[in-house]
């Protein structure tokens, strides 16, 4: 009998790509439930359409490109969830499905699929939609108003930016998620539960989220902004724990991760203070994605026994 000879090591950990991906999906469940609670069944429709669109696009791309079908590894589901999370609560569903298609086909599969994309698929697709449909992408509604034509309002960051005469939510309301915003970004509490789960499962490390959030906090202190407000009012927590930590589009070395997180923090703050948009998390991460190869190159660890 012909026996296959294998190279060492002959034992392996039981961690797999699929287990990691599905764990990330699990970590997003609290925020998913929160989005439905705050923005109604329509939020669930957005999430459903987004996930289905992403998974179907991945399946079709892999068939067209004659690649191995790997839709069950959970990565397209994550993109679907995260993409839905950064959409406003009453966006037309056809735009959602278009965005899911762009995220997977344009941003991920055209670059070579899992492991090869340069930009974060969910955020890049959001950026494309924002420039294509600026009105629909910035129409935010009052939380807990479940009607389809819910009352529109501004997000806390927009209220500050444009000096609107609208009542700002309290810290507590922002912490639990009872404020206007994209459907998955509002509840700091539920996002932190997922983030801590990812840290505990050792899927992400502290480097990116902590350096990112800390940078925003320090800059807020320096430039006399309300620190807690800056941390909780926009998409920072969602971005820092779930978007900037995307393995494929963030640096691989611990030092690189800190540089990446710090860079994201600086750009986010810069856009919020000086940019044309009230929020800068999405663009800052996309911008920093471009620097990942460069950061990796200059933060390679000193080899054991190498020159100090």
């Amino acid at each position: 009998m012909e026996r296959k000879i294998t190279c060492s090591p002959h034992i392996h950990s039981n961690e797999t790509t699929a287990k990691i991906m599905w764990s990330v999906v699990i970590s997003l469940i609290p925020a998913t439930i929160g989005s439905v609670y705050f923005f109604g069944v329509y939020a669930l429709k957005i999430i459903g359409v987004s996930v289905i669109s992403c998974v179907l696009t991945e399946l079709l791309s892999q068939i067209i490109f004659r690649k191995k079908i790997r839709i069950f590894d959970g990565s397209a589901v994550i993109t679907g969830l995260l993409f839905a999370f950064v959409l406003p609560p009453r966006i037309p569903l056809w735009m959602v499905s278009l965005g899911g298609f762009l995220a997977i086909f344009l941003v991920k599969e055209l670059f070579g699929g899992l492991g090869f994309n340069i930009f974060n698929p969910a955020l890049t697709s959001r950026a494309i939609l924002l420039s294509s449909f600026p009105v629909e992408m910035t129409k935010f509604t009052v939380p807990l108003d479940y009607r389809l034509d819910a009352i529109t309002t501004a997000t806390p960051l927009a209220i500050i930016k444009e000096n609107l005469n609208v009542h700002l939510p309290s810290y507590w309301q922002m912490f639990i998620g009872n404020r206007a915003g994209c459907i998955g970004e509002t509840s700091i509490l539920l996002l932190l539960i997922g983030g801590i789960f990812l840290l505990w499962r050792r899927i992400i490390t502290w480097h990116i989220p902590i350096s990112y959030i800390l940078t925003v906090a320090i800059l807020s202190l320096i430039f006399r902004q309300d620190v807690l407000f800056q941390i909780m009012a926009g998409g920072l927590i969602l971005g820092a724990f779930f978007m900037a930590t995307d393995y494929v589009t963030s640096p691989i070395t611990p030092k690189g991760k800190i540089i990446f997180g710090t860079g994201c923090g600086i750009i986010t703050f810069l856009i919020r203070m000086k940019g044309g948009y009230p929020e800068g998390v999405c663009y800052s991460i996309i911008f920093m994605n471009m620097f990942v190869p460069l950061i990796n190159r200059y933060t390679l660890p000193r080899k054991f026994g190498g020159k100090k």
Partner: protein
Amino acid sequence: MFKGGVKLLDFKELSKSEEIEEFKYPEKVIIPLSQHTGAPAKPTVKKGDTVVEGQIIGEAEGFISSFVHSSISGKVVSIENYPLPNGRKSLSVVIESDGKNEKIEGEKKDWVSLTSQEIIEIVKKAGIVGLGGAAFPTHVKMSIPPGKKAEFVILNGCECEPFLTADYRVLKENTEEIIEGLEIISKTTSVKKSYIGIESNKIDIAEKIERAIENKKTEIDIELKILPEKYPQGSEKHLIKSITGREVPSEGLPIDVGCIVFNVQTTLSIKRAVCDGIPLTERVLTVSGLVENPKNLKVRIGTSISEILKYCGGKLGDGKKLVIGGPMMGINIPSPDVPVIKSTTGILILPEENLPETIQPCIKCGKCVEVCPMNLVPAFISKYAESENWEMCKNLNVLDCIECGCCSYVCPAKRPLVEFFKWAKAEIKKRKI
């Protein structure tokens, strides 16, 4: 402590409490002339010769080479090429037992009166090589090159590979002799301070070692260090780092930072060669994994591995594979019809793993970077190896890789990282990049 490494399930309970058992006197042995690092030994016997146990059958050719002895008494039936358990082939002396069990009686000596040169010569003549798996000739290691100075002798009692318990048993059952061996090495290399490094999973023998240290014969300072259980704690470079805080320079040797490291069984063999005149003709190894009776066996060099497996109730096939050495760095060989050699630390039967058939994409999770004890970035090296860009593999220091297997172990995509690096190293060597 060194950075990186992994915590492994050690599976040592399977054989830890099994006392060392002497395996039966073989009817036939196949003794390779190239079991060690360096030039193969030159045969000193020919077909038809009668030999006895302990007789030299191959002599060292050059400085980095080793003597080889017969492990039984009998007749040389052939000298031909045989496959080794390390995947190579070597000219081997095949001896059939004559049933007389004759051996050369060793000459007892008081080593304190011997000079360093005399001791090194005895070690060389006794055919002693590193028994931790590398099989580097010990007399070379004990000869400190001019201009260098050894400050510390380190006894490597880590045995950090899962399943293996042979060194643990030897350290437990021959503690006094090993301490004496350590004293011999220290005196020979003019070292005043020695360390014994063991992992915390062997804490139960710490007291016995401490007692043996108290009863030492010389003034040499010996200190026991209990190190955390972290693979690859037993890697020479990492053991030195853990104990002395020094880093062996890349492409350098332990002596460059004043250290020389010896394995438990090597040290015991040195003691027996110097004090009792016994050459290296046997070793202790662990038989474990999916075998009916896991054991620590004292085996004569040249004994057939398939006979040992038969004795321990180990069968191949049905999703089971044979691994020589430990599960992290050992070699999977197709057939057990090979002899035990000096570097055979263990014989394991392990389940075949259900790994992906095709190479999966790297998701850049960075787990390999976290665990690499050499501080490399396995993820990137493997991508360059995948596209056969050997220059970049070299630039990313693939040549510093010790093939410990930590990266492959943790890789969620189950990428064959170590395989990539072995390939890259071979290509770099072949193409002289």
